[in-house]
């Protein structure tokens, strides 16, 4: 019998928790330390890959993603050790996608060749802005020129290259963004991630905002206009949105991220990693949200501090809605009802259809471009009680 996760596929996420500096907008599990023992970390991450893969032997692995932190601070040998471990119990898809997040500076660009040799076939560059002044405000250590050079090197090294930009920044006008995005589209390969700046709890920006020192952020209307402009420009450039903040030429979508959004299974390895694994017919959420040192120790001593929690059918349906409605294709209604058969969304969906926020086809429901802008409110309407 096929299990639900197979509709979304299976991937591996490896978390590298270290950065050279903490960005003021970042609320991810990332840490700045003086010295990293790469051999110890390589062995520990590989040991975890082995442990998790031995629970799910024989699965077809579609994707591996090195996220962070800043995974481009890893040595190519570290990457190779982990990839090796991932081949022990799993079968790799022929077209497996292996992505690494990288900072676009010269030091890390010098490792690109090594990463490619270790098996990385896609990079995602954290360029964030093409304006030096904004890069400084965002706390980034690279310049726009450096970023351009790193991008060129990446283009020559890897089959697929994506980069991230952050917009709706301080004092940014609609015109500013139009020009910057046009430059980005001219430079881009086949994939772009375009995020609106959000001020998250626990970041330096949050503190600054509360102190009244983070001025010039766009209001709701300007931010919405910027989003709409982004959809128009990217669409015209042949890179339509396939998710709230992600654009690609058709066929070049990030396969890894689609596993999340199509609510497949994914193994998460590393101190900040989360996973969703179906074991014996039951879907679990796994996480190991620990300080890097504590995580390393727990793996080395075999104490296994991973937290597993069973996801009820309602939890699963909620997560599928939450993740699935982010992608432009929307979700498979038959799959949703199979997951949780007593959901009754029809009247709510009818109402949202009437407002032009959703669409419904024979076997799918999804969110329109207008609806994507208010997706949180749409999902809040649809979530089961």
């Amino acid at each position, binding site marked *: 019998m096929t299990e639900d996760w197979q509709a979304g596929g299976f991937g591996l996420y490896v978390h590298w928790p270290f950065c050279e500096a903490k960005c003021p907008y970042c609320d991810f599990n990332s840490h700045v330390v003086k010295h990293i023992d790469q051999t110890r970390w390589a062995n520990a991450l590989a040991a975890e890959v082995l442990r998790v893969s031995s629970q799910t032997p024989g699965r077809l692995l579609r994707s591996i993603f090195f996220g962070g932190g800043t995974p481009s601070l890893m040595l190519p040998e570290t990457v190779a050790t982990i990839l090796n471990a991932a081949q022990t119990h799993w079968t790799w898809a022929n077209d497996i996608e292996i992505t690494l997040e990288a900072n676009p500076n010269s030091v890390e660009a010098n490792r690109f060749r090594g990463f490619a040799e270790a098996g990385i076939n896609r990079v995602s560059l954290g360029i964030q802005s093409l304006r030096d002044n904004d890069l400084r405000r965002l706390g980034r250590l690279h310049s726009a020129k450096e970023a351009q050079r790193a991008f060129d090197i990446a283009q020559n090294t890897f089959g697929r290259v994506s980069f991230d930009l952050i917009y709706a920044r301080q004092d940014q006008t609609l015109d500013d963004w139009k020009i910057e995005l046009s430059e980005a589209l001219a430079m881009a390969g086949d994939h772009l991630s375009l995020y609106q700046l959000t001020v998250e709890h626990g970041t330096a920006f949050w503190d600054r905002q509360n102190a009244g020192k983070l001025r010039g952020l766009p209001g709701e209307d300007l931010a919405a206009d910027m989003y709409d402009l982004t959809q128009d420009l990217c669409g015209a450039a042949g890179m339509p949105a396939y998710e709230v903040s992600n654009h690609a030429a058709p066929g070049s979508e990030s396969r890894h991220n689609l596993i*999340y959004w199509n609510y497949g299974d994914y193994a998460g390895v590393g101190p900040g990693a989360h996973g969703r694994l179906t074991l014996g017919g039951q879907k679990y959420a796994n*996480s190991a949200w620990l300080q890097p040192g504590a995580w390393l120790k727990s793996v080395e001593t075999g104490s296994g501090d991973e937290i597993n929690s069973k996801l009820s059918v309602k939890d699963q349906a909620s997560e599928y809605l939450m993740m699935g409605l982010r992608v432009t294709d929307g979700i498979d209604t038959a799959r949703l009802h199979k997951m949780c058969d007593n959901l009754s969304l029809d009247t709510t969906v009818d109402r949202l259809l009437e407002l032009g926020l959703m669409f419904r086809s024979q076997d799918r429901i999804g969110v329109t471009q207008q609806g994507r802008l208010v997706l949180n409110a749409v999902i809040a309407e649809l979530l089961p009680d």
Partner: protein
Amino acid sequence: MTPLNRIRNFSIVAHIDHGKSTLADRLIQSTNTVAERDMQAQLLDSMDIERERGITIKANTVRIDYTANDGLDYVLNLIDTPGHVDFAYEVSRSMRAVEGSLLVVDASQGVEAQTLANVYTAMEADHEIVPVLNKVDLPAAEPERIAEQIEDVIGIDASDACLISAKTGIGIPDVLEAIVKRLPPPHSGDPDAPLKAMLVDSWYDAYLGVVVLVRIMDGTLKKGDNIKMMQTDAKYSVDRIGVFRPQMENVQELGPGEIGFITAQIKQVRDTKVGDTITHEKKGATEALPGFQPSQPVVFCGLFPVDSAQFEDLREAIEKLALNDASFSYEMETSAALGFGFRCGFLGLLHLEVIRDRVEREYNIDLITTAPSVIYHIYQRDGTKHELHNPADMPDPSTIDHLEEPRIKATILVPDEYLGDVLKLCQDRRGIQLDLTYAGARAMVVYDLPLNEVVFDFYDRLKSVTKGYASFDYSMEGYREDNLVKMSILVNDEPVDALSTMVHRDRAEMRGRAMVEKLKDLIPRHMFKIPIQAAIGGKVIARETLSAMRKDVTAKCYGGDASRKKKLLEKQKAGKKKMRQFGKVDIPQEAFISALKMDN
């Protein structure tokens, strides 16, 4: 039984914060009525709400034994009366139960409007009045000037006022002597005459049931007596009789001039009416004491549970509170918008707030309080007359000949510099100036105002335009015809009955505009645009549009964020439950009251 000439019964008249409770505490303490270790601040205010707000809601009493400088032993009975205008009738009864008053005035602040109202009530009750200037130890104290002001404003001799500091105890012995020397003993009273005892107040005690505070006018009341309430004709047998020191102490009997309590297996406070006359079942008095009035609610509003599942809890809470408060009335109400709730009647806004607070705190029920309304008199074309307690019940205007609304006489004392603002406020609220006089640097203005312009936020506005320096009191002045209409509010084209109000036709546009603007801010943006309109009949008089929410999306959401984001969305969903849904629109509970507040 204490001989009449050794009894002194008195009350204390004071403005909030002028030190009434502190003085009472000091009198109790300096006569060793309460052991030092049992002293706590504001001994007489027993309810949390009373202590918090510094107000007295129920009458309290204490019996003090005092040996005066003349070497004789006296019994001093202090009745601490409610000081608020909402309880004017209760105050008048307490005043009738005593023969004298201490008029406590802050020696730096001077006389306030509320003091004035209560001191007039005391004068109407023929009280001897001893002025007491409190807080004389403070640097800002000006006892001479304030004494003069008392003479100017109230018209009583203040040349031999007691100068005290209730806080430090300065002057307390003088006050005790003044009570004995300057206040009269009870005027008359025959221990053998048929019993006439005034029911001063009553309340529910968890252990004893209903406790009734009485003042004996004539006759003698003993344990075991069979008594009768003359207004209700209810009969009881007295099972306990006593006095307050201030804790209960049983006595054998109470004679003329004495103040104390009885319990008599009375089930509900509702069965006892303040101002009623208690007499013996057999050989009782034939004529009741004068001045009894049944209590009349003047302000009405709807109370609805935010969570409609709590309706039964609300019913229970309201029924329990009503057992203990005869002046609070209620009936079930159904609102198209708010579902099931209760239409409740109160003596005034403070009374409303006290009841609402008690429901929310003691019974843990979140409430939606609808716009307070007064009672309108509707005269219909067919010659019938109706009372209107709820704008939602307004009949078809074409059937109405005319409407009358209640008016009040408001007295406001205000420092000169704020007079202009106060006059403007009163004019804006359709006031008619009756009088304007000066007492030193303070003006006293008297206005005839419609009660419906006052019930809601008049007092808050008055405090804010005068930075808290104005004081205010009012009395009911009867009904007058005016051009009144019902204004409806439509949200997303649906009328929200709980937001309907009665307004004067000339002010309808202004009020309507203010309300729709307020609602535009109070209602959160939805996924669609929402018209908000004010209308009279079918005619829209003000309109705003709340534009649709444009952006509410999490930019980044990957595998690791699923759990975290789910929590956020669940919170968002839970937040919606704090609101009430009208058609497709969620309206937050605070909007029902906030929408009515006028900023100018």
